[in-house]
């Protein structure tokens, strides 16, 4: 790993360790939210930017992950921290089960098809008495948790998840699987003709992204200690993920980082102005998305990358240089 990368990692670790001593609970919660949002955006980016599948239904995994954590931790008296990865795994299984059905749909049809799936899950959960129906459920297992350190611990878990998401996607893209996925995105026919299994690549990305969103969603709602169907399955999750990714730059690692920063800057900025209600920042996000799609379809990082040549986390491979020049004079 490059020295710059190691330095960045160390810097991150230091910041993360120091944060709870410098920031109060409110800031730590915001920090968790930002980091988890970044992780989710990277997952959406993995699917859309690297595999070409745009999902408008990933809120299903966020909600399912959250509900699973709440239900199991309450029912079986298990500490919620332990359940977050399990929630992610369960979402991965769910994704694996519906993939054969959804992958029959192409392009925009897939996008809306998975949205329909999310709506079905939403309605089913809203009708389930044991899950609190429309009022939702509180994290009753909070009595198992040390309330003093809960916010701090959740923060650290979030930093870990974010790191895994960014690092994981980066590593994935540099691997054979990643190369295969990018080939599929760029030209499905060509990829198939050189023996890349399109289906498997898309499947892998889909399942991984479901895992990530389930994990992050479970952690987020664990932090707020309350989940309701409207919040868990809100389509605005995907709206946020999408904006972050396209504004930052789809199909890049740096893009979602930039996009997340911008998203929260805008959101906190808007709500900080007195009297400006929640919906206006969504209007602003929508407008920014429209402008970006017209002016810089590859997002801000894409623009910067193309016009200034900046590189952050390179995933492009450089082929080996040809053998000594002038050998065949």
């Amino acid at each position, binding site marked *: 790993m490059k020295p710059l990368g190691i330095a960045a990692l160390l810097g991150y670790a230091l910041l993360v360790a120091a944060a709870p001593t410098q920031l109060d609970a409110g800031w730590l919660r915001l920090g968790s939210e930002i980091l988890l949002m970044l992780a989710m955006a990277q997952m959406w980016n993995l699917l859309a930017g690297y595999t070409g599948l745009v999902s408008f239904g990933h809120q299903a995994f966020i909600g399912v992950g959250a509900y699973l954590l709440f239900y199991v931790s309450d029912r079986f008296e298990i500490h919620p921290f332990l359940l977050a990865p399990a929630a992610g795994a369960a979402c991965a299984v769910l994704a694996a089960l519906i993939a054969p059905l959804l992958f029959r749909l192409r392009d925009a*049809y897939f996008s809306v098809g998975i949205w329909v799936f999310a709506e079905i899950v939403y309605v089913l959960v809203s009708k389930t008495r044991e899950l609190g129906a429309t009022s939702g459920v509180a994290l009753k297992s909070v009595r198992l948790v040390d309330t003093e350190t809960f916010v701090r611990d959740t923060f650290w878990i979030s930093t870990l998840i974010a790191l895994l998401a960014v690092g994981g996607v980066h590593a994935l893209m540099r691997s054979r699987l990643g190369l295969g996925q990018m080939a599929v995105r760029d030209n499905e026919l060509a990829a198939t003709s050189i023996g890349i299994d399109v289906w498997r690549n898309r499947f892998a990305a889909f399942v991984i992204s479901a895992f990530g969103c389930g994990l992050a969603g479970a952690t987020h709602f664990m932090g707020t200690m309350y989940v309701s169907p409207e919040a868990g399955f809100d389509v605005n999750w995907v709206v946020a993920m999408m904006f972050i990714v396209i504004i930052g730059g789809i199909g890049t690692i740096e893009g979602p980082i930039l996009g997340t920063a911008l998203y929260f800057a805008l959101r906190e900025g808007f709500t900080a102005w007195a009297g400006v209600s929640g919906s206006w920042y969504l209007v602003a996000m929508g407008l920014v998305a429209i402008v970006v799609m017209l002016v810089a379809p590859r997002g801000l990082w894409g623009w910067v990358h193309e016009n200034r040549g900046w590189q952050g986390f390179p995933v492009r491979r450089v082929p080996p240089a040809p053998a000594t020049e002038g050998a065949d004079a």
Partner: protein
Amino acid sequence: MDWIETIVNGLLLGGLYGLFGLGLALVFGVMRVVNLAHGEFIVLAAYAGTMLAAMAPGVPPLLWVLPVAVAAFGVGYALQALLVNRAVRTGDPLTPLLLTFGLAVVLRNLMVETFGTDPRALDGGQFTRAGIDLFGLRIGLFPLTALAIAAVMFFALQWLLTRTEWGRIVRATSDNFRIVRLMGVEPNRVYNTVMGLALAFTAVAGMLLALRTSFTPYSGVERLLIAFEVVILGGLGSFWGAFAGGMALGVAQLLGQKIDSNAGSLYAHLLFFVVLILRPTGLAGRGR
């Protein structure tokens, strides 16, 4: 008897559903663009109708359909000319998809800020409450009219596309937008009128929605999904298939509501998924 009445009413509702899908099918069929703001335009037309009716209480609300539809045509034309054509130019199908998604978010939340989240409806007066008795079944006059209007729109579109020069140009542009330029056709202009027409259909659907039920700024999402299901169930390129798909969904919706009253559109969505399982071919894109 009760069940038969529900089914019949479902078929009538299906006409409206078919109309939801018509605009979406037209735009996708011609331009390969999915207008994700489709639902929001339906709701926007509903609000427009409600406001117009409030300003002129004596006028039968159904009459407002025409001016709203004409205005919608203009909006669609401008939308395509200013925004969507530019997004399509990039060649990446993601760009117009995300653009219209952004537009949907803007419209939805602007409506929330402007109109609030309280449900509204358009009161059609006696007309919406009237019914006729047919073979011992009580059939609402309004749903029947809505079906009739939907059928007329479908016929009109089919006729336009198959029997007029404009329709021929649209079909040719949809087939091959590069080559059609060799015959002096400007694809972008064609797309402008197509989007305008699609939004006009959408406006009619919105007005009928307002007369039928209450709505909020969030009602668009639901309608988009129904419209989408209608288009996919019907199979691409077949408007009459979409009409039939709409009817199937309408029946599923009302039957579902009868069995299970707080299910929303669950049963319509489930029907969609079941059909997806049973008939995957022909649902995976244009069957060319």
